[in-house]
């Protein structure tokens, strides 16, 4: 009997496919998310839009909040550690968190190195903007990917850019002849073995969710249509006017992302979504997606 194998860690993410993972900051929100049909919750001290508003250094959540959420629901609980922060990750693992997000939403602890995620029993999810970044994270042991998007903006444009980029690059690798792959690995900055695996499978070896800007049911369905395996919703739910309604509607739109009549129905009378931010109005230093490499 062995724990922490690739199959067990990647398999956990496979079970989340077609589902919605919601950011929550307390037990009450976690229960609303579970009730709405979330496949997991991300326990945080603040949702990304509040992290933006607060400024300063954003760190791992208070373990008490993570524990409160773990005790409140039976679905898996994820939590965020700073990029490269070995101890925050080990603390979350020791608490029994089900998945760790090595996240650019928090202030990076290391501007050069990401975590060596192979060494952990707990699985990790990491953000990516292109295939090079995706393959580097898989090479370090990430068991799940998500687009970086631009967190806390309620603006889907960056997540769309990232999923299109990754999927176009995957298609290119799959179509390439094997003798071209080493040069492609060099130009992407991607581990060669991971590109070989992508070519053999015809897809990424781990699931890739959408994240960073999903604010409405139509946004979630759009990302599914562009090839995401599932959706993370950060500020989009609990910064909307009616979180319980938004949560349910986003879950349904993710399942039936090509049923446009249904999406029309469930988008009616939802109230106001979170207030969004136009990306070009963000100062370069406020762009979270530039964190990590």
């Amino acid at each position, binding site marked *: 009997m*062995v724990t922490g194998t690739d*199959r*067990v860690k990647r*398999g956990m993410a*496979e*079970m*989340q496919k077609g589902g919605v993972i919601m950011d929550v900051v307390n037990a009450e929100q976690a229960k609303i998310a579970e009730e*709405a*049909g979330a496949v997991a919750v991300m326990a945080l001290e603040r949702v990304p839009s509040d992290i933006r508003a607060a400024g300063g250094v954003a760190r791992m959540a208070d373990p008490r909040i993570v524990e409160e959420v773990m005790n409140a629901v039976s679905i898996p609980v994820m939590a965020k550690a700073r990029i490269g922060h070995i101890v925050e990750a080990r603390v979350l693992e020791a608490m029994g968190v089900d998945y760790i997000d090595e996240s650019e939403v928090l202030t990076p602890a290391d501007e050069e190195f990401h975590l060596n995620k192979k060494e952990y*029993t707990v699985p990790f999810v990491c953000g990516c903007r292109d295939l090079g970044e995706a393959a580097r994270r898989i090479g370090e042991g990430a068991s799940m990917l998500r687009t970086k998007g631009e967190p806390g903006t309620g603006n889907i444009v960056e997540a769309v850019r990232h999923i299109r980029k990754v999927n176009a690059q995957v298609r290119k690798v799959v179509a390439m002849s094997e003798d071209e792959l080493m040069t492609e690995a060099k130009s992407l900055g991607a581990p060669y073995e991971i590109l070989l695996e992508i070519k053999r499978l015809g897809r990424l070896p781990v699931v890739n969710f959408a994240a960073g800007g999903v604010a409405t049911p139509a946004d979630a369905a759009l990302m599914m249509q562009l090839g995401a395996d599932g959706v993370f919703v950060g500020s989009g739910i609990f910064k909307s006017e009616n979180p319980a309604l938004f949560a349910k509607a986003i879950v349904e739109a993710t399942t039936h992302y090509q049923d446009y009549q249904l999406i029309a129905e469930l988008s009616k009378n939802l109230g106001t979504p979170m207030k969004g931010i136009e990306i070009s109005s963000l100062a370069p230093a406020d762009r979270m997606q530039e964190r990590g490499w």
Partner: protein
Amino acid sequence: MIKIGVLALQGAVREHIQSVEACGAHAIAIKHKEELKDVDGLILPGGESTTMRRLIDKYDFMDALKEFAREGKPMFGTCAGLILLAKNLVGYREPHLGVMDVTVERNSFGRQVDSFEADLAIKGVASDFPAVFIRAPHIVEAGENVEILAKHDGRIVAAREGQFLGCSFHPELTEDHRFTAYFVKMVKEAKQKQFV
């Protein structure tokens, strides 16, 4: 050729479809209850049982699934799917489908860090089946007509009751299709009986 549906509300649908096709049967993702009429057997995949239940209720699948069971068509639940099939759930007053005479406990091996792989002896299938357990449930109690197919650490992790097959682990996550082939055979036999 027989057709096997995979309930596609959430979870590991693609893997089951590939596994069924590797066993020489036709596989269909079932997103709407009307599509159940087209299939001879149904797989309830792994995923989050609470999410699947919400969507089953929302899209009025419950009666159609129970009717499918009443018609005697085989159903195979893996992990969350086993939870959906069970007649009793530890800590819950009501079951989901409640068609298979077993009592199931959710997340009974612990959280994700306790998830594991182990080789299993499965009666009539294999002596060394690579089984992947992810936040897995297990069968606490089985009714008298339930045949126990596999145990791990003294806990029942695979069982069959006539047309119903259930397991705690994820046969769809490996390249070993022997357990799926066992279900495909159940579906073939059930279909032959219909025409006798």
